[in-house]
């Protein structure tokens, strides 16, 4: 593994009125790794995501992504810079087909706009085809190509979760952020998800994973960071983190939790 830092989350403090959701949290994500982010409920994990993707502007601190300060960027610019995410509560475009959902993501990297569409320039046509092909490819990759033409809202829950990942991948991110992708999955389904995440990494993506299910986190993560009450209390290899008494006290409870 290289030590090339992709995302540098340094000294971030995030306050909401009186509530301090994050205080001076520093996390580095290395290119090509899978970093697990865990911590008790309300520790600030989703807030980290929201700061990284521009949903919230941090009260203090800087976020550097690929050498660039992304705090001042707009949300879509952050996506274009290379961060994509899924949502803790599924948020698909319900009245678009699965294919179109992913195409919206894939369109992010395209440039043709109204003029191109009106004139149907060769470039626009080429880009449109690229988006479509890429979207189809991703649906196949996620194993849901059989429902490509169905409205997203009519898909089963598991398909919807995968579609969210496919859509995020469509934006060709350098960093993929997954917020509790296994929530509501049974163990067998979680197993499949593990494999999928590993497969995504093999494709060259860096992954940041929030998950409460230890069978997922510990099996796929290269490193794990632990938040508690808005502070980072541990960081390291999965096995080390798992044995860390602070983590056990704050989060895992009994050492064997599977």
């Amino acid at each position: 593994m290289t030590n090339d830092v992709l995302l540098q989350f340094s000294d971030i403090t995030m306050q909401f009125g009186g509530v301090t959701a994050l205080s001076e949290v520093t996390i580095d994500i290395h290119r090509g790794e899978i970093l697990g982010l865990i911590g008790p409920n309300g520790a600030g994990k989703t807030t980290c995501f929201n700061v990284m993707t521009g949903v919230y502007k941090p009260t203090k601190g800087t976020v550097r992504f690929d050498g660039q300060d992304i705090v001042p960027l707009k949300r879509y610019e952050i996506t274009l810079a290379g961060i994509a995410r899924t949502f803790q509560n599924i948020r698909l475009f319900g009245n678009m087909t699965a294919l179109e959902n992913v195409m919206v993501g894939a369109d992010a990297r395209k440039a043709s706009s109204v003029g191109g569409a009106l004139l149907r320039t060769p470039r626009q046509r080429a880009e449109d085809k690229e988006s479509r092909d890429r979207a189809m490819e991703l649906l196949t990759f996620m194993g849901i190509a059989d429902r490509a033409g169905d409205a997203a809202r009519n898909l089963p829950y598991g398909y919807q979760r995968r579609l969210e990942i496919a859509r995020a991948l469509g934006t060709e991110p350098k960093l993929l952020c997954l917020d509790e992708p296994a929530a509501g999955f049974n163990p067998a389904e979680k197993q499949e998800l593990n494999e999928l995440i590993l497969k995504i990494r093999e494709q060259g993506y860096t992954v940041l994973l929030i998950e409460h299910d230890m069978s997922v986190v510990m099996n796929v993560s290269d490193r794990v960071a632990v938040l508690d009450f808005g502070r980072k209390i541990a960081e390291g290899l999965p096995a080390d983190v798992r044995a860390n008494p602070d983590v056990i006290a704050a989060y895992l409870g009994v050492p064997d939790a599977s």
Partner: protein
Amino acid sequence: MNPVVRSLRQVGASLAGAKAGLASRWNAMGPTQRLSAYVLGVLALYLAPWWTEIPLLGSIVDTPGTQFTTVLSDRVIIFVLVALGLNVVVGLAGLLDLGYVGFYAVGAYTTAILTSSHASLPWLLALPVSIAVSMVFGVILGAPTLRLRGDYLAIVTLGFGEIIRLSAKNAEWLGGSRGINDIKHPPSIGPLKFGVVDPKPYYWLGLTMVFAVMFLLHRLENSRVGRAWVAIREDEDAAELMGVDTFRFKLWAFAIGAAVGGLAGVQYAGKVGFINPDNFPLLLSILFLAAVVLGGSGNMHGAILGGILVSYLPERLRNFQDKRVFVFGVALVLVMVFRPEGLLPKKVGTRKAVAAPGEGGAQ
């Protein structure tokens, strides 16, 4: 079972059957057959001024008390154009615009100013300028307000429409409440005379505009732009986080909607030759919105159907005299209660969307 229920069910079933039958026949046609069907349909539309001459059809479609062709040229075409434009804003991008009449007014007034009150350019030159000015107004309205969500946007656009109307009414420069007359007509082309009496050339011109707008909007809808619009409509936050520059695309929706609305205004002004602020009441914005939703918001053909119904039916129902508006209100409620998605709702998730092999999944 109650006979009414049964007959309603039967009607429903036979309609569905007819629809399925038509669809299957359509699918069975070859490309040349389809093309000729299209051509015939378009031809029939261009010949609409003579529909009233056809024995049975004539008595059904003719409007009592008003000239059928003028209804087509002055009302139906205008409403269809407007509905097409508004459908981009409301139906595709999901931005509730209650002041759309403003853009219609801007188009009409720009034409009026340029061809009558402050200059005497030909209509043909006023056309592109008016469309451009309408677009600029779309951007002027959109830029500060598109940060607002849903219903806040609705009331602001409503205010905007009123501001435009009242400004026209209060500005002597725009003719005040007197309005502007002697607006130039489109230039006559050979035997096609754009005069004051014969409405047919205007209808043909308008119909051609409708086809052109449909063609262009269809292209937009099936492009990255159209997808961005629908994504914004479905979930704006998620769209932005998927890399859609929501502000820019909303602004485009406004500008394009405004341009089409403006075009309708140009056509109207060039036809009637006279406009005043009373032509652009707030109520008209609401009627436009009703047209789009009644027909099927988000579906171009639905919007067209809505535009036709809202403009044509009141003329067809002239017999009801002053009860027309009441009937219209009741009809709106009934349609919404029983077809909340409109008469021709947008269908999502047809198998057609899958072009690649391995399609046709479960269900």
